[in-house]
């Protein structure tokens, strides 16, 4: 399925952008409207591509899930996926990644009054995590490494996992920091929850594209470099993490992390395995 | 033995039995005739309370059927009944059909029930078929098993609801033969049938019903067939039609 994506979109005048419906970096407002930090960045990339191919491009949004995003990219249904896909070596065998544009830190959310402050406090506790995410694996590794005894409760999606925490079925929710922050900000009483503990994992998040399509990848990376250089990305960060966001106009309140800053300062597509957790 | 006093029954607004009264003595063979929908089946089903009725009284061997306190299953176990469509239990063998109610209802031991059931099976000439399923028998054979099943409960009276009308013409005879035999042995019987030959031969009385559930005639067989002039016009018309061809 490797091919010349640039030629293809030039011919058709259409780009299919893979987007997420509910993640920290991209979500839907219903009625086919998709927004979020990575979604908007992806739109910017496509605008830059218009210059590359020399004609206006229509964006077709294709919502993807963590189950189907890789096959959809490889089978040609999606040209560029800008959601919240972790760049790791296993996936690099299937697809290529653009420069890392966001570095996720896996953390825990707990009830503010729970007294839980680190992984060490989890003995005998219920830990919520979302099915189909890398956090499950992270947790499994931690469990064995630290020899702590806790029960995993798997939510079917992030909202479900957070509900487990809210209703007391789980004591903590282990997940990407941006997702934790977003869920807390939208909850009934955001003050009841806080993000606690050490960083359990660091994951580079990047846009995903078909393998072996060097020209297309270069064009995408060119646009990302441009967005970093002229401050577009920082403005986007402000808009989606520090200011009120639709639809409920809540503020997520997630400051730009050192890890992400480092990735922007030195654009690269290193996989997760190349990051070391301190 | 059986007494009906002013029995009336309605389905919703429709009256299907209209003030029916009659008495059946021990050893009598009463034939019930009448056009389709006249309530013949309903009438005999009220006797063992398979159909509830709204007005009147029925006494069977001194037991009040109309009394809500009566133990109906017990009453029914003493009244044998044979249906138009045989209604053998298709998932049970002939032997099981004959014994299940004896065992579960009368509390007989398996071996007693078996001996008893096979006695009647022999009586209807079907001992050789005891291990077959109903679906493997012809209609006439099934109906004879149904009669044996009813008999093996040692009923005090037998009710028949058109026992031959679902049979091939060639098989009608074998079932009627069994019924004639029963009548001659003195069994009390109430038979809904269109077989006027049978009525003439062994019937002691004929009850003729008309649509609306009214008993139009209730007289001895000789009177019924012997004096057509004494009959109601509706009865004459009916007899004319079914004896015509």
């Amino acid at each position: 399925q490797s091919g010349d994506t640039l030629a293809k979109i030039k011919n058709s005048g259409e780009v299919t952008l893979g987007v997420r419906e509910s993640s920290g970096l991209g979500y839907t407002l219903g009625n086919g409207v998709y927004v979020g930090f990575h979604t908007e960045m992806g739109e910017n990339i496509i605008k830059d591509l218009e210059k590359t191919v020399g004609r206006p491009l229509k964006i077709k949004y294709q919502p993807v899930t963590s189950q189907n995003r890789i096959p959809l990219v490889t089978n040609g249904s999606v040209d560029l996926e800008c959601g919240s896909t972790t760049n790791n070596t296993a996936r690099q065998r299937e697809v290529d990644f653009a420069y890392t544009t966001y570095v996720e830190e896996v953390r825990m959310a707990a009830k503010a009054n729970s007294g839980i402050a680190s992984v060490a406090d989890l003995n005998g506790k219920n830990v919520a995590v979302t099915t189909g995410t890398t956090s499950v694996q992270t947790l499994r590794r931690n469990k064995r490494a630290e020899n702590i005894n806790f029960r995993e409760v798997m939510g079917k999606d992030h909202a479900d996992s957070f509900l487990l925490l809210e209703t007391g079925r789980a004591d903590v929710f282990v997940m990407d920091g941006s997702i934790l922050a977003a869920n807390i900000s939208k909850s009934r009483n955001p003050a009841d929850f806080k993000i606690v503990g050490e960083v359990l994992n660091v994951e580079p998040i990047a846009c995903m594209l078909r393998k072996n399509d060097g020209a297309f990848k270069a064009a995408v990376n060119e646009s990302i470099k441009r967005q970093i250089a002229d401050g577009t990305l920082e403005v986007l960060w402000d808009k989606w993490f520090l200011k009120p966001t639709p639809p409920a106009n809540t503020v997520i309140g997630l400051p730009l992390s050192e890890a992400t800053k480092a990735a922007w300062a030195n654009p690269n597509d290193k996989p997760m395995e190349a990051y070391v957790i301190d | 033995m059986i007494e009906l006093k002013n029995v009336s029954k309605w389905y919703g607004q429709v009256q299907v039995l209209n003030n029916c009264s009659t008495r059946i003595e021990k050893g009598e063979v009463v034939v019930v005739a009448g056009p389709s929908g006249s309530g013949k089946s309903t009438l005999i089903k009220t006797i063992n309370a398979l159909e509830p009725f709204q007005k009147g009284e029925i006494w069977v061997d001194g037991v009040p059927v109309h009394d809500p306190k009566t133990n109906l299953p017990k009453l029914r176990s003493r009244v044998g009944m044979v249906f138009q469509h045989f209604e053998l239990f298709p998932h049970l063998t002939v032997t099981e059909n004959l014994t299940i109610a004896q065992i579960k209802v009368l509390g007989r031991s398996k071996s007693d029930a078996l001996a008893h059931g096979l006695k009647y099976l022999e009586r209807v000439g079907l001992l050789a078929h005891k291990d077959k399923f109903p679906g493997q028998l012809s209609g006439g054979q099934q109906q004879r098993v149904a009669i044996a099943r009813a008999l093996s409960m040692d009923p005090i009276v037998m009710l028949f609801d058109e026992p031959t009308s679902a049979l091939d013409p060639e098989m009608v005879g074998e079932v009627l033969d069994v019924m004639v035999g029963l009548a001659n042995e003195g069994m009390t019987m109430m038979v809904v049938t269109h077989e006027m030959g049978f009525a003439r031969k062994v019937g002691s009385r004929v009850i003729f019903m008309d649509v609306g559930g009214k008993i139009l005639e209730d007289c001895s067989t000789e009177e019924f067939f012997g004096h057509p002039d004494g009959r109601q016009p509706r009865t004459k018309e009916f007899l004319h039609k079914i004896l015509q061809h």
Partner: protein
Amino acid sequence: MNWDWQFFCQDTLDMHVVQGCFGKDGEITYLDWMLSAWGWTVSVALLALVLALVVGSVIGILRTLPGSRFWATFGTTWVEVFRNIPLLVQIFLWYHVLPAFIPVLQGLPGFVLVVLALGFFTSARIAEQVRSGIEALPRGQRYAGMALGFTTAQYYRYVLLPMAYRIIIPPLTSESMNVFKNSSVAFAVSVAELTMFAMQAQEETARGVEVYLAVTALYILSAFVINRIMALIEKRTRVPGFIAGASGGH
């Protein structure tokens, strides 16, 4: 499309390939995991099926009992409620909403809840089948049972139900296969069954197509086995000289 099945032999933690594909002393390979997930799928489905058969039969019978308006209405309500709300939504209600009103449910593990939810959901459909099975019998069968002196319980037990169940074996077979397929909703309440395995393993291994293929095959195999078992039951209970359900002309 390039296939790669080797990941099944990989350990789920450090991703190294295990000799023989089955993990030893504490190692768990993806193959081990998938087989245990299949075990959960089968457990959920079988328990829910048993529950559904019992409850569905009771409700179906209630709806055919002579002269009991209350129970008939109760049965109708049961069927309408449990068949008119999607299973996934029902699971959510059992897991998150009902415990807010019935605190004991809070303590029940997801496994029990999903068996209840799937069992009741399926019971509504089985109830309809049992009812139609009973109603498909000629009215005379009921009369014949009564006329022999059977009590209501007895003629249901000895006369009506044995034939009714035989008649409904074909739709019951479909429903049993459905239970296996529908058991996939158990992932929503944290039961580590096949669908959850598929969602998680494809994320970790990036071999989605292979994972789905294996899981689909296991679902088909499960459905096929239950289909064969039901066919065997159908064959063993077939009444000689009687074609259940078929009313042929002359």
